[in-house]
């Protein structure tokens, strides 16, 4: 019997379709919320391996997938293990969210939707760069403030406005796209372009 025939796989990679999350209340990180569009790549580790080995497997997957990576550990991570993996992911700037048995047990007690709760919980132990300065295509999770301006642009009477001005790169286009996102409800006959 040849025991060296084939190494036993200790992890599996799957595609996880999920409901599309929208807004900061469901995911504070756009990568796992509106940008993910309900499609995730899932790595399942059945047996415990070192945090360094785990990170190498995750790092090898990230360049060949355009989906955010979720890591399910079918074993218990103690506080030290969890912080160690978080530290390694931050050091290597590798973005993924990890679930382990302890977190899973906690999530069973949560009354709200599990995926948003998992994302909020796991984000504390993850590296993610949600900020962007170059593009006007800002994910909805990252749009803050400008409430009175949005109201003026939508309103028809009273203190309404049809004019926006300001210097470059200060958010004029992003403001318009946010109004468009809020206002555009084709089923209710609300259109913006």
């Amino acid at each position, binding site marked *: 019997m040849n025991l060296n025939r084939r190494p036993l796989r200790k992890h599996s990679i799957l595609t996880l379709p999920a409901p599309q999350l929208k807004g900061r209340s469901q995911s504070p990180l756009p990568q796992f919320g509106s940008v993910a569009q309900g499609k995730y790549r899932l790595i399942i580790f059945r047996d415990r391996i070192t945090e360094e080995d785990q990170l190498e497997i995750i790092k090898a997957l990230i360049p060949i997938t355009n989906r955010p990576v979720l890591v399910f550990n079918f074993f218990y991570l103690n506080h030290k293990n969890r912080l160690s993996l978080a530290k390694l992911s931050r050091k290597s700037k590798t973005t993924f969210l990890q679930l382990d048995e302890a977190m899973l047990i906690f999530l069973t007690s949560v009354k709200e939707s599990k995926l948003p709760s998992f994302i909020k919980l796991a984000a504390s132990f993850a590296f993610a760069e949600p900020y962007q300065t170059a593009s006007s295509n800002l994910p909805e999770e990252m749009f803050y403030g400008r409430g009175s301006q949005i109201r003026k642009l939508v309103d028809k009477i009273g*203190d309404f406005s049809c*004019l*926006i*001005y300001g210097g470059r790169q200060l958010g004029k286009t992003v403001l318009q796209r946010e109004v*468009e996102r809020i206002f555009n409800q*084709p089923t209710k006959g609300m259109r913006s372009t």
Partner: protein
Amino acid sequence: MGPRSIEDLTAVLIENLNIIPGLIPDKYSANAGLTFLLTKIKEWIERNKESRIILFLDESDKFLEKDSIKEWPHVLPLKGLMEKTDKRFKVVLAGLHDVRRTIKIPNNPLAHFGSPICVGPMLEKRRPPRLSC
């Protein structure tokens, strides 16, 4: 491709508004002008009593400058449709500080476009002083 003429505005608007079912007819003349488009928008607004359209014209500095020279052949009809539809069709013009300067041109139609919104840096509001006993 160089900058487009402001006369191309109608074609650009038709292209963008085509996503709204029933607004632009399947067949229309290649020379369809702004009057044709605004008539179609008005008809759509009248047919769909609960509906609204907000049209954003971003980077509109040059457009406003050129339109003002020709005595507003585009802005005036757009403003007219806003008024006829009680702003259920609303146009929002955005641009650099030139947009604000345009408002200062005598007899410009932008005076009826509401109070201009200045988009500046988002600065933290100063906290009120703490009360002490």
